[in-house]
């Protein structure tokens, strides 16, 4: 049995799954259960702030500014991934880091614009409503791609990456 290394620490895993649940819940309660929708949105906002802090305070795999690569590196990686060559990363691969940043940014726009809609200043503001709708659709679209890409990477790398986000551990090999 090869040695296992802790990649995703507890706070990061908790943030990941809390954000995932908040996004799902917010999506299915939009325009239907306002109270639940708003709680999910606030929860997401708190997680996003903590995630930003964890990018400084967390371990090396939590530091997004280390994982983010220039666009051509990301494109090259995606091209190789489509050919089935993924390499193996303990933390985020270049495409994964780009997805994490895109998801976190769009979730931030979505939750902030949603919150703005129930402030007195922006209540009824059509522009804010439009931003909220589009950013929320973007979050869900990106999340779907994220899940599919992780599953693809699981197959290509012969490694259970979903389990890694639950236990936090990856095998050294």
């Amino acid at each position, binding site marked *: 049995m090869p040695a296992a290394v802790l990649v995703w620490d*507890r706070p990061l*895993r*908790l943030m990941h*799954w*809390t954000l*995932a*649940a908040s996004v*799902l*819940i917010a999506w*299915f*309660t939009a*325009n*239907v*259960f*306002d*109270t639940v929708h708003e709680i999910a949105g606030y929860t997401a906002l708190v997680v996003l702030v903590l995630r930003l802090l964890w990018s400084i305070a967390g371990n090396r795999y939590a530091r997004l500014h280390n994982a983010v690569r220039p666009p051509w590196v990301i494109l090259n990686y995606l091209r190789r991934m489509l050919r089935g060559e993924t390499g193996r990363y303990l933390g985020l691969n270049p495409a994964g880091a780009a997805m994490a940043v895109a998801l976190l940014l769009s979730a931030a726009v979505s939750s902030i614009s949603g919150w703005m809609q*129930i402030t*007195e200043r922006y*209540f*009824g*503001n*059509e522009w804010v409503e439009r931003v909220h709708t589009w950013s929320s659709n973007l979050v869900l679209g990106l999340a779907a791609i994220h899940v599919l890409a992780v599953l693809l990477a699981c197959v290509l790398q012969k490694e259970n990456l979903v389990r890694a986000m*639950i236990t936090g551990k990856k095998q050294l090999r």
Partner: protein
Amino acid sequence: MKALFGALLGLGLGLSLIGPSPALADGFKNCTKAPKTSWKPASDAEAAAKALGYEVRRSKIEGSCYEVYGVKGGKLFELFYSPEDLKLVHTKAK
């Protein structure tokens, strides 16, 4: 920790599977069965809200309702008017 993950995931997946149940829903959208061609103008609904003392921010069509965004005494309200007779059908405090 794992139990918490499980609970959160279960909640999310459960919601996505059953979908929101209409019985508990607070999305309001049924105000009239009258055909759209017979509807009174939305500006009349806004005027009705103004007459009640609301600062009207905007109105839009929500289902078969005019939804008017109104502010009164620093509080936020969504007012649902029937486009047929401009009756105030539902008031939702935000």
